[in-house]
């Protein structure tokens, strides 16, 4: 009996999750667009000009939320991987894979905006600051994960190998961050303070939070659409997928 229950769990969860993801995605798109629109409005019209950094500081309204999301998504992916390896659920691995490109995108946005912030403030496009360097390493970790999963033809092996890599990565991130910080202070390099040092007033914090929530909704929506594609690509031969598409056509 228990055996049959597990089989059901393992095999039909992508099939049952597919329509659910289809229903959730539009909701999160709407939430994302709304929140980001509010956030943009606030970052340009409500948040005051910083007396030291002028209008340039407005970059932090995308930079900081993007950095948060890039780290947060990696943690979530590692969480899905742990669930997948423990309970042997295929959907968990698919979720991790669905999140990866979006996480990498946010890491890239964080680096890009960081560099555009650094140029007027420090006069250089790239500063070997502890946080920016860590973000770069995080981007490498994302790329490594995506390359590994893409390089393995056997889906089951790709799922599990990727999951192990994510868990190894998540254990290493604190060590990497600590070492980069140590290195940075030792060399007395530039330390960019993107928030908090002068006057982080409440509107600024609120704007960043709203943007972060918007990015968060965006990530969920993107992951939902991507997981649908992954499910369909893998289950193309199954009857449920064929029935589903057949009905629509």
């Amino acid at each position: 009996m228990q055996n049959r229950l597990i089989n059901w769990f393992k095999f039909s969860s992508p099939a049952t999750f597919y329509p659910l993801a289809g229903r959730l995605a539009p909701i999160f798109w709407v939430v994302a667009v709304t929140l980001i629109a509010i956030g943009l409005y606030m970052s340009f019209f409500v948040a005051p000009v910083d007396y030291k950094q002028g209008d340039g500081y407005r970059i932090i309204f995308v930079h900081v939320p993007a950095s948060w999301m890039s780290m947060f998504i990696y943690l979530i992916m590692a969480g899905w991987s742990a669930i997948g390896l423990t309970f042997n659920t295929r959907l968990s691995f698919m979720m991790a894979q669905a999140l990866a490109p979006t996480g990498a995108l946010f890491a890239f946005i964080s680096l890009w905006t960081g560099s555009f912030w650094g140029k007027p403030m420090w006069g250089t496009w790239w500063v070997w600051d502890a946080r920016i360097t860590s973000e770069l390493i995080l981007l490498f970790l994302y790329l490594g994960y995506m390359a590994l999963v893409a390089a393995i033809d056997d889906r089951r092996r790709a799922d599990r190998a990727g999951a192990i890599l994510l868990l190894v990565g998540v254990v290493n991130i604190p060590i990497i961050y600590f070492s980069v910080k140590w290195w940075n202070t030792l060399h007395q390099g530039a330390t960019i303070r993107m928030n908090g040092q002068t006057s982080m007033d409440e509107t600024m914090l609120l704007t960043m939070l709203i943007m972060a929530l918007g990015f968060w909704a965006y990530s969920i929506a993107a992951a939902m659409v991507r997981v649908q594609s992954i499910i369909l690509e893998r289950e193309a031969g199954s009857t449920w997928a064929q029935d589903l598409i057949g009905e629509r056509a």
Partner: protein
Amino acid sequence: MSFLDALDMGKYALYVWGSFGVTALCMIIEPLLLRGRLDKARRRIARLNRMESNEQ
């Protein structure tokens, strides 16, 4: 302060719009790519369906 004044970033225009612009570009292109991938997967299954029904 008018609408345009609020968007005038002065000497920071390149940096602010460079950041926001690229972010916006990324977050518009990604959903479009996702849409394309899902449609492709659906079309492939529809094609498989047709092939199977032709065989029978």
